[in-house]
Structure formats: C-alpha cells, structure tokens
C-alpha cells in the first residue's frame, strides 16, 4: 500500500526521480514523499540515516523493508506490486533481457556526464581545469549518446525497448532529462533522443516526478559546450 511507503529524496537527482516515476507507474502516488535539502545536510539527518546508513538519496522504506539504490528499488517495486499499475517488466524472456540490459546500461550516462564533466567543472577551480581532459570527456559523452540514439533507432516503437514503457525508460529518462536540464544540445546531433525526450516528458508519472526547482530556478549550463 502506498501509505506504507516512505521516500526521502533530494532536488533534481536522477536516481530519486527513477524511484518516484516507478512509484507513480505502479499506482502508488499516495506514498509519503519528503523532499529534503542537501545544502542543510538533511541527507545526514537521523531519519534518513535510519533508512539509508550511507546518508544518500533516494532512501526508500516499504513497511520494514529498506531499499535505497534506485535500480534495486525499481526492481523491488515492480515485483512487489506486479499486479497493479503499468507492467514495467515484460514476461517474454527476450524482451525482459532487453529491459534489464538497457536499465543497467543507463548508468553509463551518469558516469560520463557527471564523473567525467559536471563534478570536474564544479570541483576544480577554473584556472586548474585541463581543457584537453575536458575535450576528451565531452567526446566520450557524445559517443555515449550515439549508442542511445542507435538503441532508439532499433526500437520497434516509441520507447527504448519498443512499444511499451518499461523499467528501461524509468532508468534512462531521468538521466537524459538531467542532461537536457544542464543544457546539453540534443536536437541536431541526436534527433531521436530529442523526440523521445519531448514525448516522454509529457507522461503523467514523469510530470508528477518533475523536480520543482527545474521550473523555479534557471538551468546551469554545465553541458552546453558538449
């Protein structure tokens, strides 16, 4: 039941968004969601640490069961609430394999965008930033997006794995949305990713999980030069 589910999350995080989208898709909109402030160190508060000793978001509890890593939480929710809401994992083994594959593959986006570029730009003083290093990282991210443009080209339908919205989209879309938020120009080089983004962002589970500060605050331009 939704009222047995508590989710602590922070602003604009991909992993948190994945879990929120999953909860919405499984018809669990009534979950106890609490948006906390990392700047006020709320991720290290007692109530979060009780669920996630690492003091990270998302932190999710269903009754006595805690699951914090976003993909684990999504797999858990799909299984625990298999018979309600959207079917996020197909029964057909070949289709299932593709969903699992894309679901985990999506983490490459956050590695290449965040570890590669965003954190580097934020944590390294401009005078110490190595342009050659950044150029290579931008090239890596472009290559990565190329893989996804290719995946969409092969998909026999509007979603990542074809006709149906699945855990693959739950995992991937938030990562893509963050890239767009950080002003990565998609349209010219990645037309399919661009139309996928425009289409999926209208899905009601996505709209319900849209980070409020994305509408309230101006977008940082950290990926504008990719």
């Amino acid at each position, binding site marked *: 039941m939704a009222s047995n589910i508590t989710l602590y999350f922070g602003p604009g995080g991909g992993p948190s968004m994945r879990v929120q989208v999953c909860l919405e898709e499984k018809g669990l909109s009534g979950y106890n969601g609490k948006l906390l402030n990392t700047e006020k160190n709320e991720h290290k508060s007692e109530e979060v640490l009780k669920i996630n*000793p*690492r003091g990270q978001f998302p932190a999710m509890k*269903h009754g*006595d*069961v*805690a*699951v*914090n*890593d*976003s*993909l*684990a939480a999504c*797999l*858990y929710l799909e*299984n*625990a609430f298999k018979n309600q809401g959207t079917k996020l994992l197909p029964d057909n*083994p*070949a289709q*299932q*394999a*593709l969903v*699992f*594959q894309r*679901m*985990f*593959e999506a*983490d490459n986006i956050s590695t290449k965008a965040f*570890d590669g570029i965003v954190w580097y730009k934020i944590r390294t003083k401009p005078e110490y930033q190595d342009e050659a290093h950044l150029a290579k990282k931008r090239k890596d991210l472009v290559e990565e997006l190329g*893989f996804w443009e*290719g995946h969409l080209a092969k998909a026999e339908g509007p979603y990542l794995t074809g006709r149906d919205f699945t855990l693959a989209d739950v995992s991937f879309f938030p990562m893509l949305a963050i890239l767009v938020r950080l002003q990565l120009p998609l349209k010219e080089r990645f037309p399919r990713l661009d139309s996928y983004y425009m289409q999926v962002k209208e899905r009601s589970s996505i709209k319900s999980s849209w980070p409020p500060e994305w509408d309230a605050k101006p977008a940082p331009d950290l990926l504008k030069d990719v």
Partner: protein
Amino acid sequence: MASDITLYWGSGSPFAMRAMMSLEEKGLSGYTSKQITFDKNEHKSDEYLKLNPRGQVPTFKHGDVIVNESLAICLYLERTFKGQGTTLIPDEAGQQALVLQRAVESDNIQSKAFVNMVYYFFTTKAEDRDEALLEEKAKAVREELQIWEGYLAKQGDGSYIAGKDFTLADITLFPFLATLVRMGLRLEGRFPHLASYHEKLKERPSVKASWPPHWKGTTGPGWLNVV
C-alpha cells in the same frame, strides 16, 4: 539449455566472473565459453563489436538474446532458469529487497576501489604516483570495505552477504573482493569477516570454475598493499 548459451569473457574481469558464476549456479556449466584476449585487441574486432558495440566483456548470448551488462545477465538467468540450480533471488519480499539492494550497492566498490584507485595504478606510471593522493584514495576504499565488513558482521559468522543463503548479492560482491585481494588488498586483521568470507567462497564450485586462468599459480601486483 546450456548449449544455446555463449559467454565471451576476459580473464580477470570481475564482471565476466559474475556472469560465469551465475551460469554455474544455475546448472548451466555446459555453456560455450569464448575467452577474449585484450592484448590481441579481440574486443575491438568488427565481429565482436557487432555483439557488443562497447567492445567490453562480458557478452552473453542465449539464442538470439544478447545481454552485456553483468547484473542484467544475472537477472535474466535467474528469471529464465528459475526452477533449476541455486535460487539466487529469494521470493520473500524482505529478503528479496536485501539481496537486490546489496547487489546494486556493490557499485560503490566499483567506483571507490576500481575506478578511483585501481585505474589510477593502471594509468599512472609508478614514478608519477602521488603518495598523498594515494592515501586519500586508500582511505575511501578502507571506509567502503568497513561498510561491507559491517554487513557481514551483522549477518553473523559464516553467513553470506544477505543472510544465511548464497544469493545474487554474493555473485556481485565476491568477484570484486577477489580481484582486490589479487591486487594486494590484505583483509586479515582489519576485516576479519570479509577475510573468512573470502576464504570460504574461494572454495565454492561456481567460484573455482570461474577463477581467472592467469591468476592460477601467479601473484598479482601489490598495488593495494597501501589500503
């Protein structure tokens, strides 16, 4: 059936080891095994890139189904061969949640120990390595290992990472641990539960069948002595 399955793997890849362990645990030892040698650039051949555009290992093929992410391979095998071999993901909600949580949580070991530390050794010449930076990285690894030591301690002596049974969570953890030990990580003393867990799992048949061939009879680099 095992004969419809092909696994492309590289010796020493913990991700390949996960796939191999899963195959063994699900009673699929008869799979077609294809070792890829990095020195010969086999992972960048046209033929291989058609199967895995990222040119990485492992690559798993079951009939027409191709899966390359190690955890995706394990999940696929557990679901498709549910009735046979070891149960890798329990049905009971609380147990299942813990197994899935620990399985994905092992990513932390990947980023702190492998990406942040081992990779530094691979890409930085010995004379260029910064002592202070190394100690910073080593500290992060120690802290991460302490978390896993804690998980094992909480489960009790002789247990597996998610309880009294061997599960998917051990398949995701053990290859990382074994590789770090291979690279000079010393567990005894500071991480007693991890040390006995490592000793115990080394003897498990699926682990023995998946042991990297080039590890046999040789010692690895002592890079992680500093941890």
